[in-house]
């Protein structure tokens, strides 16, 4: 009997805690229950972490050409040697080309005479960390000349694993910066249209309609083709970002406009106006916070579209270009039948694109459910 009572009391405690929880805390609780979204969030944290520390995590310099190991298939660390003995410290064998395979069909044979142990925190190629200090420590490595190519090498003998890590920095940030810009334009124009209505609204509506009528990909393509080829890589990067976001703000603007329109006549807004609050204050202090979660969700779901856009443009050769390493630029190497069949590992950057986009979509879904106060879950 008494047991039942404590249980009752506990439950009412939980109810009370929920009743007094802030909306943000409620959202977080709802989000936590979405297991897939939490996993997606973890994956994203991991990927962004890898992008931030790519100099340290990558065992090779992304530009270094290993002339002896051109188009080398992935070489993982081994634990068992050629005589079947187990080694606690993993190692890689040296590789030599099979001379019988001929010039075009490259074939690598393990050379068990040359053993390179794989160790943690080894010295490797020098790098400059975030432009702050120089270092030569890497998370793992097998010393100079060791063919430790986790994902194989490309046609110039560059380590694909290191290049994917460096590419993550570009591919993952382009979506974020682009969405930031999209956010700004979308809220500004959508807000103006919804708050003032009338002519502003009609003008913005027409603009959205026109931009939506022109199919996105060809528009991206023609605008990217307009970026001059002599521009330095960094400027091209920003150019591509701006192009992606100039076309992407329409969806967000429509959401914001609709919200403003319906909220303009709400009691709390009228009350604020009667109390003499300025327009800027009403918009940013009273109206915007009430649907910020929806906007953030929309933005999260917009990031993958940008990442896919960058990948597609770079794949076609009109987005980012060669000295810059992004996943789309890397995928460009796997464009034709020969490359795909001879060196299928060149498709691996695509796997990273898929995982990233998947994670963003799942997190966005979870956030949408969490932000919706009427959701049944």
């Amino acid at each position, binding site marked *: 009997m008494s047991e039942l009572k404590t249980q009752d009391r506990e439950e009412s405690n939980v109810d009370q805690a929920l009743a007094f929880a802030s909306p943000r805390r409620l959202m977080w609780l709802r989000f936590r229950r979405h297991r897939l979204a939490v996993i997606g969030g973890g994956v994203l944290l991991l990927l962004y972490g890898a992008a931030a520390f790519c100099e340290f995590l990558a065992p090779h310099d992304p530009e270094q050409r290993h002339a002896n190991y051109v188009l080398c298939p992935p070489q993982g660390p081994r634990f068992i040697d050629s005589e079947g003995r187990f080694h606690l410290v993993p190692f890689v064998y040296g590789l030599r080309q099979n001379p019988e395979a001929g010039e075009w069909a490259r074939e690598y044979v393990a050379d068990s005479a040359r053993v390179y142990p794989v160790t943690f925190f080894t010295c490797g190629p020098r790098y400059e960390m975030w432009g702050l200090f120089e270092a030569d420590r890497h998370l793992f490595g097998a010393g100079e000349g060791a063919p430790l190519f986790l994902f194989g090498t490309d046609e110039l003998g560059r380590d694909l694993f290191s290049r994917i890590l460096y590419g993550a920095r570009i591919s993952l940030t382009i979506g974020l910066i682009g969405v930031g810009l999209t956010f700004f334009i979308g809220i500004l124009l959508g807000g103006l249209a919804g708050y003032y209505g009338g002519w502003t609204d009609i003008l913005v509506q*027409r603009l959205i*309609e*026109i931009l*939506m*009528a*022109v*199919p996105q*990909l*060809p*528009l991206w*393509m*023609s*605008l990217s*083709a*307009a970026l*001059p080829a002599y521009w330095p890589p960094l400027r091209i990067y920003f150019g591509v970002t701006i192009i992606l976001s100039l076309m992407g703000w329409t969806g967000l603007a429509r959401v914001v406009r609709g919200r403003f329109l319906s909220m303009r006549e709400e009691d709390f807004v009228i009350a604020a106006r009667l109390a003499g609050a300025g327009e800027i204050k009403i918009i940013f202090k009273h109206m915007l916070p009430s649907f910020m979660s929806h906007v953030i969700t929309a933005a999260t779901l917009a990031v*993958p579209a940008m990442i*896919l856009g960058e*990948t*597609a443009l770079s*794949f*076609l050769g*009109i987005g980012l270009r060669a000295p810059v390493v992004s996943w789309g630029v890397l*995928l460009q190497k*796997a*464009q034709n*039948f020969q490359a*795909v*069949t001879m060196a*299928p590992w060149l*498709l691996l950057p*695509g796997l990273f*694109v*898929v*995982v990233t*986009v*998947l994670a963003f*979509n*799942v997190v966005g879904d979870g956030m949408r459910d969490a932000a919706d106060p009427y959701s049944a879950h």
Partner: protein
Amino acid sequence: MLKYILRRVLMMIPTLLAISVLVFTIIQLPPGDIITSRLQELEAEGQDVSEEQITALRERYNLNDPLPVQYLKWMGGLLRGDMGYSMMYGQSVNSLIWERLGYTLLITITATLLSWLVALPLGVYSALRQYSALDYLATLAALIGLATPSFLLALVLMYLGYEWFGIAVGGLFSPEYAGAPWSGAKLLDLLSHLWIPALVVGMAGMAGLMRIMRANLLDELGKPYVMAALARGLSPVRLVIKYPMRIAINPFISTVGWLLPHLISGSAITSVVLSLPTTGPLLLESLMNQDMYLAGSFLLMLSVLTVLGTLLSDILLAVADPRIRYE
């Protein structure tokens, strides 16, 4: 209804005009024009090009006129059904585009039918048996399908086709039929090649539609009228097909309209990868080579098709869903 359609058509005119200006601006954006890039090519080959030749070329393509005049001439030609002249191919744009539209139509329609055939039943099943094993599987597949760029899928299929079956995936015909006149055998050959591009092009739409179908049907199934109908003894199968599904199917109809613009651009990158004789690669090439009339005509056609498609969808939606009324 007729009045509504008429009003919508009239409203399209200013939108289309604005789009045409936008398109014209975009194709003028890249520095230089096709003559300058042509000249560079010729000079690289060691040929001398005289001043007169250059002016003659510029004269021929109206490149000396001020931009507004160029725009008006282009529009005038378009109204007469003349889309201009492709400098890259030395052919009129009309002859280039129609040649490829047929194949594009074939692939797009096959892809759409395929995606509906898969998405519709799977979406309905997922909603009716929520959280079943097949639902989880379908959801996972749809999420991955949405996250995979179609060109990547094409590349993976290429690799698997070679590794497992030893076939070279790509193109619409085997080499021996490519230049051959039409025959029964050629048609069979086409059909055996068609399914891969159709699958690749249709995948993203398939995944998206399945998710939407599932979500919409789930929303409908929770409504009181479904419960009421069940309580009155309507058989579940008949009930689902007759009421909630009819409402949940709306997104299928609203996306029919997008098929039209999809015809030209949707499969552009996939077509490049799979070397298909469709409009996509041509559009891409024209954009990269600043073949302005070809690119401009493509872009404008795409936009017109999008606007028309949206209208078509709205009309179809009104026919299918009696709840939709027009002011």
